[in-house]
């Protein structure tokens, strides 16, 4: 393996947050961002080909090692606690903010048809949504938007990766399921033998 690639891999391994190619270019002397990106792509392919427990992913404008999603039941066992989950109300509120940002609370209230104060506060506390500013209208209402953490949590490279709402409208009706699907509580772990 080329020494530079080894350095990049080590940097990614150490960083607790997604690491941008720009940052890595600052660290590595005489290396163009373009070169770093091509090394990163090479690493991504390498990890994918290896079929191991971790993969290199592009999230929130950077790169990060993450576990393979189908291995989640095992890791949940290690971590024991309940996974941090958002309630259906929080998820709906977040969807409105994500697609319509920047926007004021009254707009979210109108779309969801309920007062979203509680759900919005929860999202702010979790730092998934943030205050962007104040709208220049009487009362100067607060404007909300999503955070970088939102991208990290939802495995998105950037906001453009969100499927457009129009696509959603073209979809046939969802099956009769008034509730959000829950991540299945797997009691039995998948068979380890291939």
């Amino acid at each position, binding site marked *: 393996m080329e020494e530079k690639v080894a350095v990049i891999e080590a940097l990614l391994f150490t960083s607790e947050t997604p690491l941008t190619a720009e940052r890595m270019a600052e660290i590595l002397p005489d290396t163009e961002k373009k070169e770093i990106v091509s090394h990163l792509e090479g690493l991504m392919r390498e990890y994918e080909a290896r079929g191991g427990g971790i993969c290199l992913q592009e999230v929130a404008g950077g790169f990060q090692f993450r576990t393979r999603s189908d291995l989640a039941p095992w890791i949940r066992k290690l971590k024991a606690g309940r996974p941090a989950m958002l309630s259906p109300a929080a998820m709906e509120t977040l969807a409105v903010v994500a697609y319509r940002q920047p926007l004021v609370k009254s707009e979210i209230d109108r779309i969801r048809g309920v007062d979203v104060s509680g759900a919005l506060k929860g999202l702010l506390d979790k730092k998934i949504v943030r205050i962007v500013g104040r709208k220049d209208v009487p009362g100067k209402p607060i404007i909300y938007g999503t955070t970088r953490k939102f991208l990290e949590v939802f495995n998105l490279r950037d906001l453009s990766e969100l499927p457009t709402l129009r696509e*959603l409208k073209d979809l046939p009706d969802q099956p009769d399921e008034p509730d959000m699907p829950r991540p299945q509580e797997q009691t039995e772990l998948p068979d380890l033998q291939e």
Partner: protein
Amino acid sequence: MSYEIKLDIFEGPLDLLLFLIRKNEIDIYNIPIALITEQYLSYLDIMRSLNLDLAGEYLVLASTLIHIKSKLLLPPAEGENEEEEGGDPRAELVQQLLEYQAFKEAALRLDGRSLLDRDVFTRGAAVEEPTAAEEENEAMVEIDVFELFTAFRRIIAGLDRKEDLEIDAEKMSLTDRINEIMERLSEEGQITFTELLGERTDRRRIIYTFLAILELMKLRMIRACQSGPFGTIRLFPAVEG
């Protein structure tokens, strides 16, 4: 309690309306207002009879439905043609429903992604326990007996049913338990429900602890707070210091 009622909990009046539309297999662009209004109101009755906290928004939509129904029944007033009236009185509601439906589906899609700390994990960072400062920042909501009861039921349900019968059971009195709780609270400032139970979670101990907490809450000696639904329950002395 000998029976349990299963009721879909709706995320709001629009959610309930969408549910009724799906249930009746109705075309959203051609809603039979009379039928839907009737069913909507009967759902509100059920929710009220269950003492569910009925948010005002449900009533607002009820009145909107009734208003639309009356508009559909009345012939257009003289000198007023359909265009000026804005056409179908249902149009605005349909628009709102479609918009809400789009976001509801968007929410489903978001939830279906590989979420960090639920489906995918990063190295180390997230395994850390939240720091004390972060926990302080968690919004604490004061809870009542019902939440406490839910926690209690959850713990009891998690117990191994087969429990060795102790003949000479450890003698435990409510007074002792109350004193113990107050002592620990004055030392530690705050304490979680689970910490109070300690390692040995036998039925007797849980029941006594629960009773002691109820008694202390009644006497307003302690406050119980929770960081969210099913969050950790923390007990604080009612008066600081």
